[in-house]
């Protein structure tokens, strides 16, 4: 486990994007398999994402009457952009693309963009269903975002740094997930919510005919749905240096451990969607403010006390 990370030349951005693409594809395949298994009939679902890719590439794009097209397209392609920007600060073992002093804040800045992008996708279509979906996402955002921010603070306090590489190497003795499990769980909740995934799907709910996605077709739908998978993957990848010890692990090299941990967490995220009913935004608001927020604040306090005591 190296103490510092090396910044690789900018050209490696392409490789990082490719890895994120593969992780997103893995998530999509896994979701296809789970869905097919639950349905209990038909093909295995292994090829579902590829068929969906072909279908959407072939499908004509649509726009709606008097749509706010520019904002609509910015919204639907924004999620993919966010996900790619998040992985720039995630060290792959000892290499990173962007060794920012305040990498944790960088993640925070990127994840907040989801508010704009998901809402814009709902707004732009000039459709009631999409609009309602967009505002449902904002209502969720009000409840998950603060706990997520405070959850990100916990590893930073323990490592006395906002640099992602330093946070990862501060876990050489003990992974942060072990002694700050609440922060980890709240962080995972936040990631799932950003990706409009799992129990945070009311914005795309079938009660409002797909909500934010109700009017998307062709490439527009592809970038939006692909962006959701990419965000889920990027969130899982960012959890590795923050909570899961970064590249630490026996036998395998650091980069391999980062990938293994990412894949494992990503699989849990994908599986979770099937196990839980949706959190209605109006109910989750109270949970976010009165359960998650105080819980993660207490977690921060404990972490700060332990960190000060160790120093």
């Amino acid at each position, binding site marked *: 486990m190296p103490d510092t990370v090396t*910044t*690789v*030349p900018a050209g490696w*951005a*392409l490789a990082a*994007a490719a890895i994120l693409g593969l992780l997103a594809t893995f998530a999509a395949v896994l979701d296809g398999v789970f869905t097919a298994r639950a349905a209990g009939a038909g093909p295995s679902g292994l090829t579902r994402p590829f068929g969906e890719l072909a279908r959407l*590439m*072939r*499908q004509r*794009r*649509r*726009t*709606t*009457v*008097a749509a706010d097209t520019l904002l609509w397209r910015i919204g639907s*392609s924004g999620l993919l*952009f966010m996900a*790619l*920007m998040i992985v*720039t600060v995630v060290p792959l073992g000892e290499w*990173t*693309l*962007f060794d*920012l002093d305040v990498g*944790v*804040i960088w993640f925070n800045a990127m994840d907040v963009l989801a508010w704009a992008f998901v809402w814009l996708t709902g*707004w732009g*279509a*000039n*459709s*009631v*269903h*999409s*609009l309602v979906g967009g*505002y449902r996402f*904002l*209502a969720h955002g009000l*409840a998950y*975002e*603060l706990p997520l*921010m405070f959850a990100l603070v916990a590893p*930073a*306090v*323990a490592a*006395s740094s*906002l640099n992602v590489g330093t946070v990862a190497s501060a876990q050489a003795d003990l992974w942060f997930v072990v002694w700050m499990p609440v922060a980890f769980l709240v962080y995972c909740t936040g990631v799932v919510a950003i990706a409009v995934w799992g129990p945070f799907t009311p914005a795309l709910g079938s009660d409002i*005919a797909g909500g934010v996605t*109700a*009017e998307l077709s*062709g490439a527009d739908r592809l970038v939006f749905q692909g962006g959701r998978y990419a965000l889920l993957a990027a969130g899982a990848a960012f959890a590795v240096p923050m909570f899961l010890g970064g590249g630490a692990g026996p036998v395998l090299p650091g980069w391999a451990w980062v990938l293994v941990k990412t894949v494992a967490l990503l699989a849990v995220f994908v599986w979770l969607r099937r196990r839980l009913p949706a959190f209605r935004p*109006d109910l989750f*608001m*109270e949970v976010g*403010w*009165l359960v998650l*927020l105080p819980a993660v604040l207490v977690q921060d*306090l404990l972490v*700060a*006390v332990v960190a*000060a005591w160790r120093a």
Partner: protein
Amino acid sequence: MYSGAAAMALVASVAVAGLYGLHRLVALAPDALTVLPFQSGWRPEEHALSRYHVRWYLATLLFLAFDVEMLFMYPWAVVAAELGATAIVEMFLFLGAVFVAVLWAWREGALRWV
């Protein structure tokens, strides 16, 4: 140092643009079709773009207060361990005070709207 992020922004833009470009080539028709928004098969009675009534606006004010608080929290996180008890007590007294406001807002029904 920023070249990595800049390169990634470029990759992201090229990826999205490339996807749209490829779609133009292989899709049934390159241009977008203009249609009415879906409303269970009826014509929409008015444009959906309107002043949407967000009945959770009180929660947004609460959020704003806490969000500004976060600005202090990040720099504090870096030095909290070093400064020790003083820093911790000050920060959590502050957080506690803000959280009392949350409890008050909850009692007033700001977190419920349906």
